[in-house]
């Protein structure tokens, strides 16, 4: 009862704060602007949020804003979604992936060296995926060679979110080729200003460039920046990937729910509000979006009560990705031909801008990144439904 009261109080407090502080008209202000302006807006929003303590609720007690229970974090995320506040996409990797990895697997020295920087707005990126290691991440080839008290890095990473702005990188490299793929990986912390690092942004189909390729040419990293043991990188990477603990999908599914009104507005705008076919499709999408919210919610409640089962997170992500596709597809259908004549894009807008082709294309971020739908289906079928694994070996038998 008392904890319920305390989350109720927190909810009121966060709601009131957001009402005061969410930058009015940020969506319009971020439409068709260059990346520098977006960068500045993100920096301002991060400063505000962290000053209020809402940027780091998942950090341990003793840190500014830290020591919040998962239930309280959930409240903050729900309110952020409700207020349609900008997402902190520039800082997300730093605040979640980097911070949680450091807290769970980093040494005391590493924590003292890097965590204050994250609080001060240092930007981190994640160097995991490679051109030939996406779904099969463990096959990655970027090499780290030990020489004295340094590692020498050579290779290439890709799909690294905001790498072109990052100060530091969470880098997963190969130090050993002899054993199974997972065994030879090592986790390093890299200063992006090191000599030999070059970053090339990837221009996306939406007009945005949130991702980049990173090239390493004899880049030096001190052994002080090794996280965990050499060869233990796969386990450290799992800590990174588990860091946001379902909160993102609670927030995103709630955002999608609040954005259902965009569908109604689109119908009103072009006079299709009474179209019986569209109305039925709207009813279907509403039920599915509510299903996505309920599933994300249930997952977080399971985590809070330590009842999570293997595959639960995959169910949430797969269903969200599919509901988002259905939502944006219906938007395109309602907008019709007119929807195809507005190529403007919005930075940091997630996938609910009301520019339906843009939102539709952005929905693929959620069915591809962070473990594609197909990978989630493998996890669900093999680990949850206990269906046998695909045979591992494969031999090319025919001509092409």
């Amino acid at each position: 009862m008392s904890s319920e009261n305390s989350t109720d109080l927190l909810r009121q407090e966060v709601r009131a704060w957001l009402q005061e502080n969410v930058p009015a008209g940020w969506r319009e202000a971020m439409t068709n602007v260059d990346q520098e302006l977006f960068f500045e807006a993100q920096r301002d929003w991060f400063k505000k949020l962290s000053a209020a303590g809402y940027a780091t609720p998942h950090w341990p007690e003793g840190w500014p804003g830290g020591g919040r229970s998962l239930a309280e974090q959930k409240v903050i995320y729900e309110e952020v979604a409700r207020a349609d506040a900008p997402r902190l996409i520039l800082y997300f990797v730093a605040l979640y992936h980097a911070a949680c990895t450091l807290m769970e697997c980093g040494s005391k020295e590493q924590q003292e060296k890097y965590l204050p920087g994250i609080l001060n707005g240092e930007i981190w990126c994640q160097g995991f995926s490679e051109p030939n290691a996406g779904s099969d991440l463990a096959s990655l080839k970027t090499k780290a060679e030990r020489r004295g008290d340094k590692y020498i890095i050579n290779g290439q990473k890709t799909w690294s979110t905001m790498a072109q702005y990052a100060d530091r990188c969470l880098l997963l490299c190969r130090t050993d080729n002899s054993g199974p793929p997972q065994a030879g990986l090592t986790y390093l912390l890299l200063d992006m200003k090191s000599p030999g690092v070059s970053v090339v942004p990837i221009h996306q189909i939406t007009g945005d460039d949130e991702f980049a390729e990173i090239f390493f040419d004899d880049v030096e990293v001190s052994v002080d920046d090794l996280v965990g043991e050499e060869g233990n990188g796969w386990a450290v990477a799992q800590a990174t990937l588990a860091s946001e603990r379902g909160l993102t999908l609670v927030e995103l599914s709630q955002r999608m729910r609040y954005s259902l009104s965009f569908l109604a507005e689109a119908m009103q705008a072009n006079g299709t509000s009474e179209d019986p076919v569209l109305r039925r499709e709207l009813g279907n999408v509403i039920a599915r979006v509510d299903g996505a919210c309920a599933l994300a919610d249930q997952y977080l409640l399971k985590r809070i009560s330590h009842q999570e089962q293997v595959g639960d997170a995959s169910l949430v992500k797969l269903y969200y990705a599919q509901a988002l596709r259905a939502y944006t597809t219906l938007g395109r259908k309602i907008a019709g031909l007119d929807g195809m004549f507005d190529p403007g894009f919005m930075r940091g807008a997630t996938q609910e801008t009301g520019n339906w082709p843009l939102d539709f294309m952005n929905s693929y971020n959620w069915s591809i990144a962070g473990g594609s739908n197909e990978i989630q289906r493998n996890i669900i079928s093999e680990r949850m439904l206990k269906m046998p694994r695909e045979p591992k070996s494969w031999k090319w038998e025919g001509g092409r």
Partner: protein
Amino acid sequence: MNEFLKELQDSARQVMEGAGTPAKEESTWGQLVELGWLLTAVPEELDGLGLGADALCMLSGELGRNLSEAPFLPAALAIEALVQSGLENKAELLAGLTMGGELATASLAGSDVTASGSGDSLTLNGKLVAVQSADNASQLLVWSNDSQCVALVAADQAAVEAVSRPGWDVTRRLFDVTLNGAAGVALAQGAEAEALVARLLNLRDFAMAADSLGGANALLELTIVHLTDRVQFARPLASFQALKHRCADLKVEIAAAEALLNDSLLKIEGQLGSDDAVFRGKKAKYLASATYSKVAEECLQLSGGIGMASEYPCHLYLKRSMLSEHLGSQGSYEADIAEAFLRQLSI
């Protein structure tokens, strides 16, 4: 779900596992009466367990898993109507319906009924469709078109005619019932009746959602066993990604519909029949029965040839799912959901 309900679910699952698929009407009915399942939602002050809609849904889910032929849902609706009524002899009537094995049944779909008179001298005219196991019922629960009257009608009067309508779904025996000036007793009239009808239809949506999800889960489990046991090309079928990804897709649909149902039951806080609860019930029923159909359609394909054989139960789930999509309020659930949503937006 609280601990007590969880325990009740475990024991219900055990009971139903012994009942076979489909669980036969007579034996299942006898068993559920004996086990007090019809008392679960009755308030404690009326000697029930006071577990409300959560318990009814849980039991509907377990019965749905085994394609139960017993008219649990209509019986529960009649009991709920009686509980909400102000009838003087309601304790006595309740005892008969909950523990005496007496059945009061109801329509699982639409009705077209007018009522005149009041109290225990009502006259009812019209037609009810999809009334389950009407030939075994001593009473019928009836509500009028204008929702101004909810009544119990004795089934054995000459003015009540029940005609069996054999259908594709053999796990529920449905009847068309005609009322030709039948005598009835009012359970509620006027505004009270209106609220009661909303409550009953809302409960019906939630329980149907649960029945559908019980069936969908059981059929997916059965299909995965088949895929795991059957070997072709020297591999279990279940190891083929082309097949197991489809099972994963069905699992995720079921999981979301279940989460929506459970979340809805939690959020309505016992306020069945409120606008919010009705909206949630529509969404839960729609998503669950659409999911059931999708699961059944896919599982028939995934079962291959054996799915087309009547000895294998896949078709029974398919037929029950197809019927369930059409049961409930008549008209389109999707359209109703959209309308309620648009109405909320304009407030």
